[in-house]
């Protein structure tokens, strides 16, 4: 019994793991570059004259239009002298690539400039930064709450599978998950206004002169209803995924083995089941986090929350292309980064994730 002719496994870490992380990061960067390029052309092939969007007056004089186009840099060729991509071209068609809209766009982007809003004449980066902060506040709170509630409910449901607790949690989650967001938001809005909660905006006007804690309390009050809506909508999804994932894990042989080794219920759950059951949750959380920045357009609209989601909705109405372009880029980059984060968390959590 000395030798079995085994193939002794080769050492794999940490070099391969580092390489895998580098490769995934490289792919993420490549995807972002692709999005930057696509994002530019997407808005250039859309019909309609961007310059006219800001001032919706058919009597606008030709000189005024030209002035607007120069202001927003639309007089320059898109990337070359492609007439179809640049229907209203005023200036002469230069072929100097550094003077085309595309390269100006890339250059500005590298300097952190996303252009100027057609509608408000303010820099897009400034508008988005302000809106982004509000969205992260709202959706962040909603996500954290729904993840905590969902995981706890899911664990209880799976642990007490096929009992009243399980069926109760299942019914509540399914219902919460299938509620139309806008409908729940409007319902809660009615309820909130009846009990005197603020139902619109982020803060009461004039609060800025109040002490800082009073301001925070005011924001928290305004946040309550939209956060509650968000939490209810997402809680169901997390509960259902956690429940089924944990039930799968609990039926595995290594759980039975752990029991046979003498581990008690808490030890089995803590040391064996949860880590494995969290793997599918990580994916779902990462995907949802990616869309966090996109905001919950419906919730933000119903509660007039000045977040990214409502700014996208407004920009579409106003054909404010620079704002849309900036928001799209921000959303795409967040989704890509969230996915990268999920990948990296996965390699850390699950040793089976292969380097391939």
């Amino acid at each position, binding site marked *: 019994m000395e030798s079995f002719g085994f193939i002794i496994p080769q050492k794999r870490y940490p070099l391969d793991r580092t390489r895998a992380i580098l490769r995934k990061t490289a792919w993420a960067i490549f995807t972002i570059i692709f999005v930057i390029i696509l994002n530019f052309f997407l808005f250039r092939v859309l019909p309609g004259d961007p310059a006219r969007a800001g001032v919706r007056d058919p009597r606008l004089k030709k000189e005024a239009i030209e002035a607007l186009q120069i202001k927003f840099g639309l007089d320059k060729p898109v990337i070359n002298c492609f007439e179809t991509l640049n229907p209203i071209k005023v200036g002469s068609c230069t072929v100097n690539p550094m003077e085309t809209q595309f390269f100006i766009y890339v250059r500005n982007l590298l300097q952190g400039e996303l252009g100027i809003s057609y509608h408000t004449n303010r820099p897009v980066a400034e508008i988005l930064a302000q809106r982004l902060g509000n969205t992260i506040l709202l959706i962040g709170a909603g996500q954290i709450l729904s993840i905590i509630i969902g995981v706890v409910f899911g664990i209880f449901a799976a642990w007490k599978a096929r009992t009243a607790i399980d069926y109760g949690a299942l019914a509540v989650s399914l219902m919460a998950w299938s509620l139309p967001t806008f409908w729940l938001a409007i319902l809660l809005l009615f309820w909130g206004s009846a009990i005197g909660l603020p139902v619109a905006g982020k803060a009461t006007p004039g609060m800025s002169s109040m002490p800082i804690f009073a301001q925070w309390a005011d924001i928290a009050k305004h946040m309550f209803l939209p956060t509650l809506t968000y939490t209810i909508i997402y809680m169901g999804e997390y509960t259902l995924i956690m429940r089924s994932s944990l039930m799968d894990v609990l039926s595995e*042989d290594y759980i039975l083995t752990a029991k046979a080794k003498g581990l008690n219920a808490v030890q089995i759950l803590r040391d064996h089941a949860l880590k494995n059951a969290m793997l599918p949750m990580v994916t779902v959380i990462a995907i949802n986090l990616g869309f966090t920045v996109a905001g919950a357009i419906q919730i933000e609209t119903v509660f007039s929350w000045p977040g990214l989601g409502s700014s996208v909705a407004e920009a579409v109405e106003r054909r404010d292309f620079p704002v849309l372009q900036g928001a799209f880029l921000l959303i795409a980059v967040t989704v890509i980064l969230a996915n990268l984060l999920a990948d990296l968390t996965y390699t850390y959590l699950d040793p*089976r994730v292969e380097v391939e």
Partner: protein
Amino acid sequence: MTIKQFEKFLEVRGLKKYFEAGRPTLFSREKSLIHAVDGVDLNLRRSEIIALVGESGCGKSTLGLLLMGLESPTDGKVIFEDRDITHLNDDQRKDLRRKIQMVFQDPYESLNPTQTIEQILTEPLLVHHIGEHDQERSERVIKAMEDAGLKPADVYLQRYPHELSGGQRQRVVIAAALVLEPEIIIADEPVSMLDVSIRAEVINLLADLRIKREIAVIFITHDLGSVGFFADRVAVMYLGRIVEIGAMLEVLEKPQHPYTKALLSVIPAPNPRLRHERIILQGDPPNPINIPSGCRFHPRCPAAFDMCKLSDPPMMTLTKSHKAACLLISSGK
């Protein structure tokens, strides 16, 4: 190590486990029951190897889980070292877990994929508060690994299960059982998921452990041919009950129960000249919900006669070390 002598090492008396299987029809009042284990008597001696043989669904795995206390029996008794262990609470059961360990069928499923081999093997020691310090625990782990044939142990310690082959994993599973220094190992089809070339090694390993560590083994299998030669005794199970039990050679050479005869006749023989006629069982595969009347094997038995439908045969003693439950024996046919 002096071994305290017990009158009864492991004794099973009239053990039954019925599972609820819902209602036979929508309007039935009674729920149907799956008779997974239906009155098993078994006696295991210290450092003895019993092969528990039977087809899929005959209740042999359930019997293993009952002995481990992972399922609670419907009726009957399990006595271990003169102590009734049929119904214990978690605390009482925990001490017992050290002494009775289990090896499951699928080494791909029975190891937590997120733990290293070292973590897997150290955990039982931590749970049972064995070993004063890390050094001592690590020595125990390495000893168990070497006994399980994982040499040199330090090559494997930092590996994850997915980096090992099936045979290596099953050795890890066995090492994880050994680390607690058990007195009984219940091995539920431990080789059926392994390559044929690895099977003999794992079986030899278990046979070695009996000599080295005086561990008794209940070897659950559906393949009489591969395990017969290393067991001391063979117990044949059919539909929740042991129908024949005896010393390995006696059962293999002079099988008395028609079911044992059928099982033995279909073991493939490598030499075609030695092939004999195979007994292919007729009739439906057994249904543990509706147990046939009389002898539970009669619908498929090639030798059944009228009495078999009416009378449930008791266990008949053939020799000191051989018993079978068949009416043919008592009727002298």
